[in-house]
């Protein structure tokens, strides 16, 4: 009985995973972030330290996940949640972000890497 329940449980979960496999989850996850930051990654060195901001609503769990994914993708550069670092990564969801978003964060765009990824400088660096 123990073995049968174990077997059935594994089979059940396999069906779940197969279902998940068939869904399209290309917009989120490590591979999509590796693609998203492809151009920016070419510029990072182990000495790079970036600030980070996004257009996600405050306290949105997705925001934390996206920040972690950005750090994972850009390692060995260090990414912090500050917008006071000399260079700040703006990770926006629109391909051509609204200039008001930068203004609201007191950031000046320096280089647009596409996909909503823009390297900025703070207007009042620390």
């Amino acid at each position, binding site marked *: 009985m123990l073995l049968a*329940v174990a077997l059935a449980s594994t089979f*059940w979960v396999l069906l779940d995973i197969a279902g998940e496999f068939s869904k399209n989850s290309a917009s989120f996850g490590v591979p999509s972030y590796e693609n998203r930051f492809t151009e920016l990654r070419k510029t990072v060195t182990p000495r790079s330290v970036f600030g980070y901001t996004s257009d996600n609503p405050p306290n949105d769990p997705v925001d934390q996940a996206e920040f972690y994914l950005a750090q*994972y993708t850009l390692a060995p550069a260090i*990414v*912090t949640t500050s917008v006071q670092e000399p260079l700040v990564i703006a990770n926006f969801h629109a391909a051509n972000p609204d200039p008001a978003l930068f203004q609201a964060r007191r950031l000046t765009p320096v280089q647009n890497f596409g996909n909503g990824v823009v390297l900025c400088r703070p207007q009042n660096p620390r």
Partner: protein
Amino acid sequence: MTLLFLALAWLAGFSLLRFLFPVPLRVSLHNLWLLSLGAGVGIGMASSLYFLTMALAGPNIVVLAAVEGIFLVAAVVLALRAKPRAAALDWANGPEFPWYLTALFLAGAALAAILFVTHSAAKPHGEWDAWSIWNLRARFLYRGGELWKNAFSTQIAWSHPDYPLLVPGIIALCWTLAHGESTLAPIGVAFLFTFGAAGVLISVVGILRGKAQGLIAGALLLGTVGFVAIGAMQYADVPLGFAILATLALLCLEDRYPGDLRFPILAGLTAGFAAWTKNEGLMFVLAILVARAVAILRYGNRTNLRRQLGALAGGLAFPLATVAFFKLRFAPPNDLTATAPREMLTHLVDFGRWITVLEGFVKAVFGLGDFLLPIAVLLALYAYLVRFHSAAEDRVPLATVLAALGVMVAGDLAVYVLLPNDVNWQVTTSVDRLVLQIWPAALLAFFLAANAPQLAAKPKVAEKSKPARHPVKSHRRAAG
């Protein structure tokens, strides 16, 4: 190439164990045990040497390759020169295991492998903890060059840079030697620990209780969807669970072959690798020393205590020194040590925190492993049918396992209560994984205590002479 270097670490671990417990190279339970345990020992040694080399000589691939190469060659030469001098560890006598149950076990193992492969194919970088902690650290170590110590920067404190480096270390080592990153490294490491744990459980329960018990225990572990899935997610809870199981299993074998110090020395080594895997492993080291002392003082030969603890300490020395070096020289303070005593005291007397944590543990036990039916209830039913029986000679190993797991649970509970974080969030996101860490060792304890199931009607002749519970007594000291 990446997998080749992982395989070499495994080979080194297997060779080291074969040197200690030499038997002919053929298909046997003894070699299954060595292969399974060898994965953890090899990875632990290779990872420790990687970190020490980085710390003492910097990221120099020539020095790194030389150090790891010397370890591998020495282990292989020792293994080849070792002459079998004692009987191999073999299945204990027990009831026949019918063919249909063997088929069920094989089907379970195959499904577990399919589950692991499917999960890994869908998420080759693992899940949240994998890319925010373990693989992230490996990337810093590998990609950082001279600045590899950025892996422990307080600027990424959210990624727990104080966590030990067994998993990131072996991944970064494989990438370094292969001159390239591949997700095959973390996937391979996760595979070895997940299925290695099953191998250790099957072989040790098989040695101590027979084939039926061993295969049921192994099937149950591989059928624990949560365990296989967490393994495939590349979380370090499975490697830690492996180390906890390996340590306790070695101590159980030591009680079966008293006076054989190879077992407790090796148990010390695997306990040390637990501490090199996760911070909870440090608590396990304390738990194992306390548990062993309590078990021996209560049920064993007290004159053995100093010798036993000395052997354990001998095995612990290398990995624990590595952990101490890392913690003292590189790691920033962790959540618990950074908490002010006053805040801890406030948490300690907060009744609500205790209730939240206890509730979380109870829920995690009943929901353990994502079984279709609660496994705790099924095991209770199984125990009712076959009954527990603890012979005098089994009391020391059983007491060791149960006391160690008890100390671990109590320690985990205390950490939850004392930690500065939101206890609700902390419990929700991690308590099920803490239970999975001790699940393989809990299965070991369960099947050590449970009587073997009677899987077929006894022949009438056999009924007259009641079978001994440990028909392997004549073999007991053979490996000594």
